[in-house]
């Protein structure tokens, strides 16, 4: 058996449909536990006070904003190389989820920044590259909507996705590249010295798992929806001819 069998739209839907309720309810449960833990049962930070509780939404949403684009990049490359329609549709399906994650990261960051940095926004390398990533998401969705032929749309959006990946990488590593700006380096690290204290780290890890599960559930549902829309289009064209 090969992974490419799942590039068959029918096989993709029959395989993923039973998984969706597990992923969705799993996401709700894990997120419920993570956010309840973070909000109710973690202490305030010595310097940041209770604003540290924003961490449990800001960090997972920012991680997902970047990782959704990485998933779109992989799907786009698969489309360009192997011409599997499901991969192009999966990238298309993921983009609106990425937009929501990016808005959430920017919003939670701004609200967190005001009391801690004294400003909602700064043209800091990480914040700016994140804003550009958000604009790339909007451009990607607009390009899909603007082109009628689905294969041409998939080709052009795939190229846009590859170009936008520069900003996805910059969003993650801008602080390390330029070593300036207000935003601190990554809060989460495998290095115990650099990582946040365990009392914040464990609930954050649960929240990240919840965000990943939620993304998986949503992207599978939305990809199946895109496949069905493609089938409707094909049937309607057949009926007209």
């Amino acid at each position: 058996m090969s992974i490419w069998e799942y590039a068959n739209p029918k096989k993709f839907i029959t395989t993923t449909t039973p998984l969706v309720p597990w992923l969705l309810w799993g996401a709700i449960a894990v997120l419920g536990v993570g956010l309840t833990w973070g909000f109710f049962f973690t202490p305030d930070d010595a310097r940041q006070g209770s604003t540290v509780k924003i961490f449990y939404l800001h960090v997972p949403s920012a991680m997902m904003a970047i990782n959704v684009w990485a998933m779109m990049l992989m799907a786009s490359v698969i489309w360009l190389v192997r011409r599997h329609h499901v991969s192009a549709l999966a990238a298309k399906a993921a983009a609106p989820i990425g937009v929501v994650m990016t808005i959430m990261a920017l919003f939670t960051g701004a609200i967190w920044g005001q009391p801690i940095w004294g400003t909602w926004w700064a043209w800091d390398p990480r914040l700016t590259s994140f804003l550009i990533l958000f604009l790339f998401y909007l451009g990607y969705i607009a390009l899909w909507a603007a082109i009628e032929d689905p294969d041409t749309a998939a080709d052009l959006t795939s190229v846009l996705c590859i170009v936008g990946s520069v900003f996805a990488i910059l969003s993650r590593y801008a602080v390390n590249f330029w070593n300036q700006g207000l935003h601190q380096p990554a809060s989460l690290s495998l290095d115990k010295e650099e990582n946040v204290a365990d009392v914040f780290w464990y609930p954050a890890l649960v929240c990240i798992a919840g965000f990943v599960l939620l993304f998986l559930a949503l992207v599978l549902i939305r990809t199946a929806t895109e496949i069905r829309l493609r089938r409707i289009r094909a049937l309607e064209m057949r009926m007209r001819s």
Partner: protein
Amino acid sequence: MIPDLGKYAIEVLTVYAVSIAMLVGVVAITLHRSRKVKARLAAVEAMQGGAK
């Protein structure tokens, strides 16, 4: 019972309320659109079957 959030209560509560609303919103929109498209496909397939 809400923990004592001190002087940052408005910021923290706003973040949680808006973020949870966004997550619920994206799930609701996704499920609604999925149901709508499934129903439309069923209708088109039925029409296709009738046209044969």
